[in-house]
């Protein structure tokens, strides 16, 4: 689905990615995690085609991303960022339907898809014609998720999607998002700095440091048998690693069944 092969990236002399090889298998949620500056956001931005690798390549559905196929690839991706990235001059409906309208979908098809998604993300009808400034943070992220899902993408890219929310809303949305992804069986690549969130979402965690992948695998594997000292340090630096472990075990069980 999405593969990184020997990807190197520098920003003004600073190495952001130092030869990363990574696979995001189809239908699963991969979570990039690591301290800030480790290169996790760079990986996500490479997948979205917002930047290009200095060396190596990003392969999407069997073809390397390049200028000539970038737009076609993007139409098969959904993208959601911390503050939602909603266009402030358009209503929720305007935001969600914008690209479908550009692609010439008939109005009925757009409306039907919109209603379906609104139900999926539980966005009440009274908010559909509101503008982003009239919405709460949680409502905005629901709308942003609708926009990301509108064209029924194969790959969903999430950059700290819940990072700007207060803790209560955050936990609530975490549950819902995880349920939605499980139900849709989409390939998801997500960036977070919060290990609890990573554990919650990820059946595959990718731990990064200084432009390199340090360890990848299930949450349990990372928490129980860290590959090197850094992984253990990172895990221990998070709050209550024991509780995380328990949560991870609980979270993994239904998926394993």
């Amino acid at each position, binding site marked *: 689905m999405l593969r990184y092969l020997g990807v190197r990236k520098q920003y003004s002399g600073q190495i952001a990615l130092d030869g990363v090889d990574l696979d995001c298998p189809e239908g699963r949620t991969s979570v990039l995690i690591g301290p800030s500056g480790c290169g996790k956001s760079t990986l996500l931005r490479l997948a979205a085609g917002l930047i290009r690798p200095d060396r190596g390549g990003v392969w999407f559905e069997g073809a390397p991303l390049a200028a000539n196929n970038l737009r076609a690839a*993007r139409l098969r991706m959904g993208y959601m960022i911390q503050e939602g*990235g909603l266009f402030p*001059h358009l209503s929720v409906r305007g935001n969600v339907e914008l690209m479908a309208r550009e692609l010439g979908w008939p109005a009925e098809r757009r409306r039907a898809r919109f209603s379906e998604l609104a139900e999926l993300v539980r966005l009440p009808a009274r908010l559909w014609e509101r*503008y982003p400034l*009239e919405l709460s943070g*949680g409502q905005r992220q629901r709308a942003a998720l609708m926009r990301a899902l509108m064209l029924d993408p194969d790959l969903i890219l999430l950059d700290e999607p819940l990072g700007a929310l207060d803790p209560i809303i955050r936990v609530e949305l975490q549950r819902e998002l995880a349920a939605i992804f499980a139900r849709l069986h989409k390939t998801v690549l997500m960036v977070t700095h919060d290990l609890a969130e990573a554990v919650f979402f990820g059946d595959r965690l990718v731990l990064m440091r200084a432009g390199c992948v340090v360890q990848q695998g299930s949450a349990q594997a990372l928490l129980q048998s860290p590959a090197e000292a850094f992984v253990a340090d990172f895990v221990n630096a998070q709050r209550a690693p024991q509780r995380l472990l328990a949560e991870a075990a609980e979270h993994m069980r239904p998926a394993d069944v």
Partner: protein
Amino acid sequence: MALGLTLLVLSLAVAAEPAANPSLSVGSKKFTESVILGEALTLLLADGGFQVAHRAGLGGTRILWGALRSGEIDAYPEYTGTLLREILAERALPDLGALRAALAEQGIRMSAPLGFENTYALAVTEATGARLGLETISDLRAHPDLRLGFSSEFLDRGDGWPGLKVRYRLPQTRVQGLDHDLAYRGLATGRIDVTVVYTTDAEIERYGLRLLDDDRGYFDDYQAVLLYRADLAERAPGAAVLLRRFEGLISEPVMASLNGRVKLDGISEHQAAVELLQERLGLAVEAETVGFWQRLWQRTAEHLGLVAVSLSAAILVAVPLGIVAARRPRLGQVLLGVTGVLQTVPSLALFVFLIPLLGIGWPPSVAALFVYSLLPILRNTHAGLIDIPRPIRESADVIGLTPNARLRLVELPLAARAILAGIKTSAVLNVGTATLAALIGAGGYGQPILTGIRLDDVGLIMQGAVPAAGLALAFQGLFEFGEHWVVPRGLRLRPATAGPQD
């Protein structure tokens, strides 16, 4: 590309000139005497059956001379001293015969002197003169603290202050430039001590001024003559003969009294010209009376025309340039720099620069206003686009919008408020700057303002200044109203107050 667009606008401006094409055109400088003479010439030609227009009160010798050379005007009153010392100064011509020949080389004819001399003289108030015992210009040497106020033309021209200072070795350093017509007020209120006057100015008597004797013979003869184009003979047979009826016709007292009629008695230059023709040529020309409202309407139409055309052209050019500037930062810096520099060119200088290319009147005025309108629109378009947060721009890219669709659906709507604000700024500036277009014969509200300054008539100034201010306010209001249509509703909202978080 910017150059191409600019040329396009210039050519549009030329093509769109609304005035019917009069077969003859008379010019005059922006002081009373010149306007009276120009008006009298115009009436005389019209009486002789010619279709003729008067470009009254053009702003400066260079503008008139250029307009005459290029055929924008066919005739205007000039002074021999100005021709010898200013216009053809580099030729160092010895006498009028040589001057006549030099003019002929350029396709310009000069009439015989009209009969009066209007030379420069330095003037002080009678009180100052008596207190300091000033009789001659040489006497000024003993008083280095005197404050001098001269018209900016006199300050610059070859036969003006620079030469005078050298000839008399004058020590004064407090020299300021101000409008000729304001200099009398400056003297009367004691803001300046010495100014330069024309010897036929009616104010000399009115303000009780003492003229200082030119004891070193610095100032030239400034005999009034008419200049006209040599090709007048073919284009308008008989016109030159009519013009030459003024030769030797107007004595100094006659001219001074006509100036006084206008400046002190408050009759119009048109009326004074009618009187001149009646008294000296026995010609009964009917004085035209244009009603206040009709004149106001005409000026409003002229002013609005200038603003509307130049502003529309500026929008069409500056918004796309702003988009280019936002897309290509380095080119953007160049574009912003160039328009910024253009903005700093003084308007009169820009007018004078444009006259050889576009003549006088409408085309150079529109072109100059166009140039001045570019920067605010360009800068705001650029800033409006640059200020769009990166996540928004990137979201537009990643959802699959092409660059053009991104611009149309996301960036321009988000920048709409800034762009509109830039256009509003340009419009308001434009309304103000357009009053200067009267200096090069494009009419508008500037016409009564200039005349009012010349005649020291506050009422007349108000006739231009008040509607101009009104127009500026109207534009401001129009654009604020327009915001509701142009700026998307989602951008006019205040952020949501803390509501239920669901």
